[in-house]
């Protein structure tokens, strides 16, 4: 980082199905929560970055920058960014760039998504917007289908069994029990994961993160120092279509971004105490652990089978917390902050990707007084 960027305010709505709350309501709730604990006043916010993917398709609402700006009395400049499921972390990355350049001193980042207003099949189609419209979508594929292809291939290459895969969602659900902001707070035994209905073979319903409403907000600042410093903010991209990649059992965007993130932070894998990774589907968690360098290719499942010193998705991950697409990347940073506060450890990492790993953004948070 060119300059020290601190995370000085965080807030989120509980993720879930919010019948009575609109996209705007959700954004407002998260912003209020973030402002409440921050050492700055609303008037100190000199830029807003909004992350959202489905505003137009589900809520008929575009122009979200100005919409968010209207929450603050002085109407600061605001933009919206979109990178499918990576929108939230790309918004954080954008905020870091604004802060590093000196364009802004305190930036409000809001990730928000309203998904449950639309029927499931409409959401399925809308989410396919994150894939390649000419190369992927015409086959009739869905996003679970894309990860079904990845899972089938992964099982073929590395011999992962259905029983092993069951453990992933089961552990995420167990972690989610203690998270008051999680959409699902009940334990689900591993056998139930494997017995849930097929969505896209070999993936079953409980391998998939749910459709959710929710918003999360962070305030980043170079002006107000705090205990938590953004030590690295890196993003990388890959082809949008999986047909243009040599391998589908590893995401090169994750690999690229993590190398640069560790370099920027001056840390390495062993330093990370808490990791929030992007488990949109159970299989994605295994790919992430491997691509991030925490496990050898094909061995990601060992983290779930044997455990380790680092916590993985202590919040419950996307599976238990819910996955309001653009809110997820912002919410992950909030969870890492909470985990570092609780454990007193120094380093935590978030891993958030969009599409089938076409965009990946990684943030490393340093607990400065640890």
């Amino acid at each position: 980082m060119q300059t020290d960027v601190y995370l000085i305010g965080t807030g989120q709505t509980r993720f879930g199905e919010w019948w009575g709350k609109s996209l705007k309501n959700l954004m407002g709730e998260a912003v209020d929560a973030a402002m409440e604990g921050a050492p700055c006043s609303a008037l100190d916010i000199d830029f807003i970055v909004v992350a959202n993917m489905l505003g137009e398709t589900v809520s008929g609402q575009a122009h979200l920058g100005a919409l968010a700006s209207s929450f603050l009395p002085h109407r600061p400049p605001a933009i919206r960014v979109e990178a499918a499921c990576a929108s939230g972390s790309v918004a954080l990355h954008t905020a870091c760039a604004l802060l590093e350049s000196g364009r802004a001193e305190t930036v409000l980042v809001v990730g928000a998504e309203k998904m449950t207003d639309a029927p499931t099949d409409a959401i399925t189609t809308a989410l396919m917007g994150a894939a390649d419209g000419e190369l992927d979508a015409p086959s009739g594929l869905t996003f679970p289908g894309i990860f079904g292809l990845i899972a089938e291939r992964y099982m073929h290459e590395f011999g992962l069994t259905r029983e092993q895969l069951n453990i992933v969602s089961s552990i995420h659900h167990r972690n989610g029990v203690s998270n008051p902001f999680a959409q699902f707070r009940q334990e689900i035994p591993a056998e139930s994961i494997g017995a849930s209905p097929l969505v896209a073979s070999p993936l079953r319903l409980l391998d998939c993160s749910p459709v959710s409403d929710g918003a999360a907000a962070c305030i980043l600042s170079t002006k107000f120092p705090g205990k938590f410093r953004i030590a690295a903010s890196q993003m990388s991209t890959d082809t949008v279509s999986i047909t243009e990649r040599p391998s589908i059992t590893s995401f090169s965007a994750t690999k690229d971004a993590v190398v640069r993130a560790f370099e920027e932070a001056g840390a390495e894998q062993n330093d990370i105490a808490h990791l929030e990774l992007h488990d949109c589907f159970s299989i994605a968690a295994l790919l992430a652990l491997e691509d991030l360098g925490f496990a050898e290719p094909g061995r990601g499942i060992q983290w779930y089978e044997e455990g380790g010193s680092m916590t993985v998705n202590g919040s419950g991950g996307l599976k238990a917390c819910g996955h309001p697409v653009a809110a997820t990347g912002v919410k992950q940073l909030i969870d890492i902050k909470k985990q570092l506060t609780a454990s007193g450890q120094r380093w935590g990492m978030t891993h958030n990707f969009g599409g089938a790993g076409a965009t990946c953004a990684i943030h490393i948070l340093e607990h400065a007084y640890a």
Partner: protein
Amino acid sequence: MRTPDSPSIIARAQAKRRDQLLEGTILSFTTVTHPPKGFPEKPRTIGLIELTNGKHVLAPLLIKEGATPAIGHIVLPRMMLSRVNEQGLRIYNVAYELTERVRMPEEAERQKFPGYILALTGPSGVGKTTISKILTHMLCDFTAGVPIVTSREKKEGDDNEYQYVSVKEFERLRRSGDIVSWTRIPSDTEDRFYGYRASDIASIWKEGKIPVVITEMHLLQGLATHFGRRSILSCGLLPPGHSKRAMLSQLLHRMRTRGRETEEQMQERLTNAKADLRFFDESRDLFDHILVNEDLDDVVQTLKGHVLALANV
């Protein structure tokens, strides 16, 4: 909310469709239980396929009943009605049909190899039974006919090539997995099931002989799926004739001469024979040799050569 599908979007997406009309290998596959809006509302199996030109494509897989896709299977392109858009435009796209060929390392393939089966496939009346009888008689030390389990009534002119069971019993054998390959010949006059038992084939292998089976398209595919395509020495038998019409008239002539069927049954068999002839065109990969039964002796001699080669004599 639908997949964007104005005619211009579809035309652009399909511009390079021609490049996809190539053989490919399955890299991965998935069955989507609920395809997106606008696609037929039934589970859709989609493959990630590596074409022979090195490109990867995503496309639906066409899977015949009883077959299951697997990574490494070779697929062939077919045009298929993909969906109908909101304006009623029928959109055709390239889909891929499963073949029984598998691209896998020689070694792994050899480990799974159970033994050879000689399969004779062809339309009714082409002479499969006659050839099989001559061959198994002439080479009784090397070959043995596999009894066909059938639910049809015993008929005059049947030799001991059939084992007759009730439809109920056939169903039971099929469900228990004893019958590994089976077919139902469409018929208005009777309910006819035919199949082969794995135990019959295995006991012939045990004697050190090559089982000889008489098949049609479903039986052949079933055997190839169960035992692996490499296990089947597959011979297609065609009646002489330069056109399909000439072949069909040959078959009708032969059926009349042998006098085993009624006129009604003959008409049915002729309809089935048309489908069989089409199968020869469409599924060439399922055949090692195509023989024209113009001269019985020639055909038998050719097959004898193949059998003796396999028997390492």
